[in-house]
């Protein structure tokens, strides 16, 4: 497994050899760390899904994603990740069939998304909050044991800080000029 992942986020980690990841959406559950590789909530239908995908791709042992818990209203992140795995992306990065507010994948490539879709089977327990049912689903995944998907996949470069060649006299932004008297104007204005 890649040393750089998982991406920082609101999740807990269990056995990295486990084939199961669990997305609990708006709910908080704890799972047996010997049975689940990574679990946690997922709020947004764009950045949240990107983080989940990047983390899952970094660990090829993960072959199942259980999507459970109460849906995030408005964002519809649960419905959106199910749609992503089912339908993939449109050319402009929009997730096909998502009902979420701004369902775009922009920080990982289309290739990475395809690999993500191929790597995992999704277990649809959207709006299911019964811990017993969720645990049952995890057990069924463990029984299937699909094996590793191969090498870890680097979906993004972690160090993506932009080199910004601004001069020291840009107080706020390269397009703005602020006079010593506090007047804000465009750079091209005299």
């Amino acid at each position, binding site marked *: 497994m890649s040393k750089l992942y998982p991406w920082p986020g609101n999740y807990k980690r269990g056995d990295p050899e486990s084939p199961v990841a669990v997305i609990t959406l708006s709910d908080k559950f704890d799972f047996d760390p010997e049975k689940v590789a990574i679990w946690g909530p997922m709020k947004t239908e764009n950045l949240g899904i990107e983080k989940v995908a990047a983390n899952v791709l970094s660990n090829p042992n993960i072959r199942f994603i259980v999507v459970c818990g109460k849906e995030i209203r408005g964002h519809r992140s649960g419905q959106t990740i199910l749609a992503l795995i089912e339908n993939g992306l449109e050319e402009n990065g929009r997730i096909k069939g998502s009902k979420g507010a701004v369902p775009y994948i922009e920080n990982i490539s289309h290739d990475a998304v395809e690999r993500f879709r191929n790597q995992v089977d999704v277990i649809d327990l959207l709006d299911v909050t019964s811990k017993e049912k969720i645990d049952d689903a995890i057990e069924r995944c463990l029984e299937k044991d699909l094996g590793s998907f191969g090498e870890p996949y680097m979906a993004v470069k972690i160090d993506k800080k*932009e080199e910004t060649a601004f001069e020291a006299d840009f107080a706020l932004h390269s397009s703005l000029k602020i006079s010593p*008297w506090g007047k804000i104007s465009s750079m091209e204005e005299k």
Partner: protein
Amino acid sequence: MFSYTQEQRIFDLKGIKVGGQPGVHPTLMVGTIFYEDQFKDPKEEQKKAVELIREQNKLSQMTSIPTLVDIFIYEKEEIQWKVEFALDHIDGIFSLDMPESEVRMEVLKHLGEIGALDRVIYNSLNLGVKEEEIEKLEKNTPKGAVLLGYNPQKNNTQGRVDIIKDGGVLMDEGLLTLARECGIDYTLLDTAATPFGEKAGETVRAVPVFKNEFGLPTGCSLHNTVESWKWLDEYEDRERVFKSLDVSIDNLPVLLGADFIYYGPIENADLALPNMAMVDKIIAEGAEDYFGTKVSDNHPHKSL
């Protein structure tokens, strides 16, 4: 503390002035009702909401901070009663916050049928807008809209400007052109709060850039960024500290010229409005003393 060379437009939202040079008009504060889990018992929702709106109005009068009510609508089933509630209990303009495109389209249809489009700020027109929704907006045009500068492809300040200006690489045209083509009069620009770790600071930086670029009322809802702070979840005295941070983070964009703030749940009006009155007083005093800015009459600088 700043003044803009670019002319700044001021909109009159049925008596509430928003926009302009810093220090002229107090900051418009928008409090939201019907957040998820705001009320546990649906039967109590409307009753409680009436009290909260009354409280926001009272604090608005007390502090000279203008306010609007923002109403969350998640599902189509909620449209009719929530719009009816707004028309019954809110004077003037109100904001309708509808994350889903399908819901927004139904709302437009409903508002058109009952003749209430001139009462509404459409929150929001964003990257998620579909062709079908634009057609609906052309047919049933709300008086105002929040234009959300969220750009997942490029979330620095320039990317946020692009979404408003020309759509960047994700849209064929910018949200401002779309809004104008639809005939929306009041275009409020939202710099789109992002979580910590996702260029949250650009939400603030974008405020003066938007105002300089477009000359339109600009604001944001940075309380969403506070909610993303994982460290705070573990903090021992979280509830009390969270409330304080939730309110004080709004001071940052306003210092740079933000004209409106979506401050989150309306329950926080008791802290958010006095806080903003204090910030507006400082800004108005600085603008008046230094730039000779003419502060409006109904302003905490004069009344408090």
